[in-house]
């Protein structure tokens, strides 16, 4: 028998797992950048000022210190991703789940 339902479940679970991990990790990176020049530029663009152009964002100093809520939320995101990685290792190593 061709396991169509297994394939369907597989697709949904892969999508949720990969999409979730990538989104949460990206969110963590985004939160770390709160207060960074990109933010200031985005704010400036909203009021119609010119952006700084093609400047490597990583080279610029933070214009504002990162607010504590952003640091905390970023840590939470990375903790979730680390948990997902550990679960992945658990699934790979047969000795752990037999």
């Amino acid at each position, binding site marked *: *028998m*061709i*396991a169509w339902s*297994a*394939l369907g*479940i*597989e*697709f949904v*679970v*892969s*999508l949720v*797992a*990969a*999409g979730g*991990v*990538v*989104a949460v*990790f*990206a*969110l*963590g*990176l*985004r939160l*770390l*950048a709160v207060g*960074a*020049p*990109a933010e200031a530029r*985005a704010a400036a663009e909203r009021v119609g000022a010119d952006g700084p152009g093609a400047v490597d*964002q*990583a080279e*610029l100093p*933070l214009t504002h210190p990162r607010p504590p809520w952003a640091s905390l939320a970023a840590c939470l995101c990375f903790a979730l*991703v680390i948990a997902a*990685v550990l679960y*992945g*290792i658990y*699934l*790979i*190593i*047969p*000795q752990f789940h037999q």
Partner: protein
Amino acid sequence: MDALAIVILVVVLGLVFDFTNGFHDTANAMATSVATGALRPRVAVLISAALNLVGAFLSTEVAATVSNGIVKEGQGGIQITPVMIFAGLVGAIMWNLATWYLGLPSSSTHALFGGLIGAAIIGSGWGAVDWFNVLSKIALPALFAPLVAGTVALVATYAAYMITRRATSRGAERGFRYGQTVSASLVSLAHGTNDAQKTMGVITLTFIAAGLQKAGTGPQFWVILACALAIAAGTYSGGWRIMRTVGKRITEVTPPQGFAAETSSAATILVSSHLGFPLSTTQVTTGAIVGSGLGKKLASVRWATFGRMALAWLITVPAAALVAAVATLIVKTGAIGTVIVVVAAVAGMAAFWMLSRRHPVSHETVNVDEDVLAGRREPVSVGEPK
């Protein structure tokens, strides 16, 4: 032909196959990390080799059948003889080397199955092959693997770009490079637990068939060690030709894409091996890279490259089967036939190696297009396309 001689040949060819399996599949885990500069090429293959070595020791449970039900083995079916396994390995190795020379990622598992199918058809007739299992375990997964992984990676890439404002957030590029390294390592470890075990199974089942080992017992320690070392050595040797295709020629992989693609591959491989619809690692990772190209910008996938790969996937099984069938025909003529096949196989391996020296690809040139090397085109920087 002396039975022991065939067993020794199977062991040697099994380890050669394991080695080609290693360098064929380095690209699966590491091509995107090398392409984005997350890891230096030599470091990438070292990590991948170490994890394949560890993985090989973690999972040593030998499958009950060589062909996973594709050839009707055992009760009511045919007996897979060491001669068939020998011919099957010759077919698989030749196809792996041909696709490596052309820089095409193709499934080593499918090559091995193809070789066994060819040997079984010549050895016992068309009825020896379970064609329904060929359809459900090779053909359909080959169709679904890139579709599933590609869609997952497309969504993941889109999410990564949206959340980090097209990766312009401070530190985003670097962060994605770190993340990508971890995902790629998971893919390598999963690969080691799956693929080294296949060769261990082939060698162990040959010992059992030849009466050298009791049925139902696991692989001997030296078999585990030899297989683990062979796949790790193969992985370390790099397979740069395939890595260049996967990392550079499907799409220009950027760190967010690389992270999304590798994470999607890792998730799809893990989920598929635990939910009962196993998918080929090669086809999953390639599909994920295509998906990550689509997730960024529809036009940035080079469909011609993907088309060549898809064609290679389609003909992997028949091509390996054809070589194995011819090998079986020659071996059947007796001891001289076996010697002819061994000589032809060694000559074939040497020929592909010689051919590859004419246009070598190494860890130094893995990220450079050959048009640039030949001076036909200016190098293009790897950064964000405007």
